[in-house]
């Protein structure tokens, strides 16, 4: 289970929330580039949580601003032997 696989699965979850089809790179920010509001954040986080069966608390979310940080955080939390 490598980081690229985690990245790919999060990208799938992002699809429905990225209505403007913004190209996402490691440095893409959720508030700035993707213009996520708090409701979108909640739904997107819930989708990732369900996909990986993890919890990303608001405290942890506060540390995550960019795509790379999200992928790293989720990858570290994966219980399936990442």
């Amino acid at each position: 289970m490598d980081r690229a696989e985690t990245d790919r699965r999060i990208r799938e979850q992002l699809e429905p929330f990225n209505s403007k089809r913004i190209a996402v790179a490691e440095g893409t920010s959720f508030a700035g580039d993707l213009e996520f509001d708090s409701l979108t954040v909640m739904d997107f986080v819930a989708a990732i949580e369900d996909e990986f069966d993890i919890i990303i608390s608001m405290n942890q979310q506060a540390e995550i601003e960019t795509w790379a940080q999200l992928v790293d955080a989720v990858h570290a939390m994966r219980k399936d032997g990442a």
Partner: protein
Amino acid sequence: MSEGVMQADQPPVIEAAPAGDLFAKFDGVIAMREGLLKAGQEDPFSLVMEQVLSPTRAICNGRETILLGTYNYMGMTFDPDVIAAGKQALADFGTGTTGSRVLNGTYQGHRECEDALREFYGMDHAMVFSTGYQANLGIISTIAGKGDYIVLDIDSHASIWDGCALGNAEVVPFRHNDIDAMEKRLKRIPEGAGKLVILEGVYSMLGDIAPLKEMVAIARKHGAMVLVDEAHSMGFIGENGRGVAEDAGVMDDVDFIIGTFSKSVGTVGGFCVSNHPKFEIMRLVCRPYVFTASLPPSVVATAATSIRKLMDGADKRAHLWKNSRRLHGGLKALGFELGTAKALSAIVAVIMPDLEKGAAMWQALLHEGLYVNLARPPATPANMTLLRCSLCAEHSDAEVETILGMFERAGKAVGII
């Protein structure tokens, strides 16, 4: 959700100001407000009541106005017994305690007020705070500490969010009233961690209620403690007016009930009631209880008297429900879109197509002589603009009909119906 009109209940992430002026970060809010006022509005957020005639009438901007946007659900603010108790306490105990509850600020009246609450809820312990905001702030931040998890509804009131922010627990929100989403999150919490589920009986933005029967059972199943904020249900929901938890038959499974004196009770103050055997220790460890002055003697005297009267307020309760159902049914028949399919509380939220029309409608109603609450994004769920109507047991049948007539005229004038 809160009545905060310019802010979301969830604390915002504020961008750092570029340089120097610490107020630069408020420029967005300032611009938003100016935009609204430029549209020729009376400022919906700085209305002054020049005279208050009764729980349901006031003079606003020189006009006699029917009040349909207060939280005076049970109309206790002008109750003669309540007023007499306040005057007596003012004469006997003075204007204020000038001290903390744990030092020189606990008078006979504070004890009597807590006795009244224990009896009202049939619970072992009651703790009175200076406001409901502080009750949430204090209890939540104190009981949920580092390594514990708080699972809460995303539409929670600002005081709940701020209680979470003040503490060190991991905060995990779930979609509004979504039972499955709540359970999924509870399931994923690491073994052994402390868990607190926070719910509200009535959510004040739309006037909808939580499925407490199911949610409390699930919380229990996963070993979580449960706190329910019953700010908007006290006095008229449940057989004894104890709230949605009573109505759902789950009082025994709720660990903490938070409430306020600023709504049905008709004064100011907050409280927590509980059966937890160690609850009294809160008085020593809860900072928003310790490090602030206690309520004035007149306030706790009016609160205690009001709470005792609410215990046998069955007739008023029935009339409040009649009012709520009539207003809800009448507005629906007129063609307004409402926040709930039927009347579930004393709040009826009318959904406006957009902020501009909402503000125009608010003003048209004010000119008709009716005050309602204008709620707007980001304080509202799903960024709706709402005209929130809250009924009072003292609104007469005739007044409710008058109100419907005002809505019909204003709605047609603004082009909403």
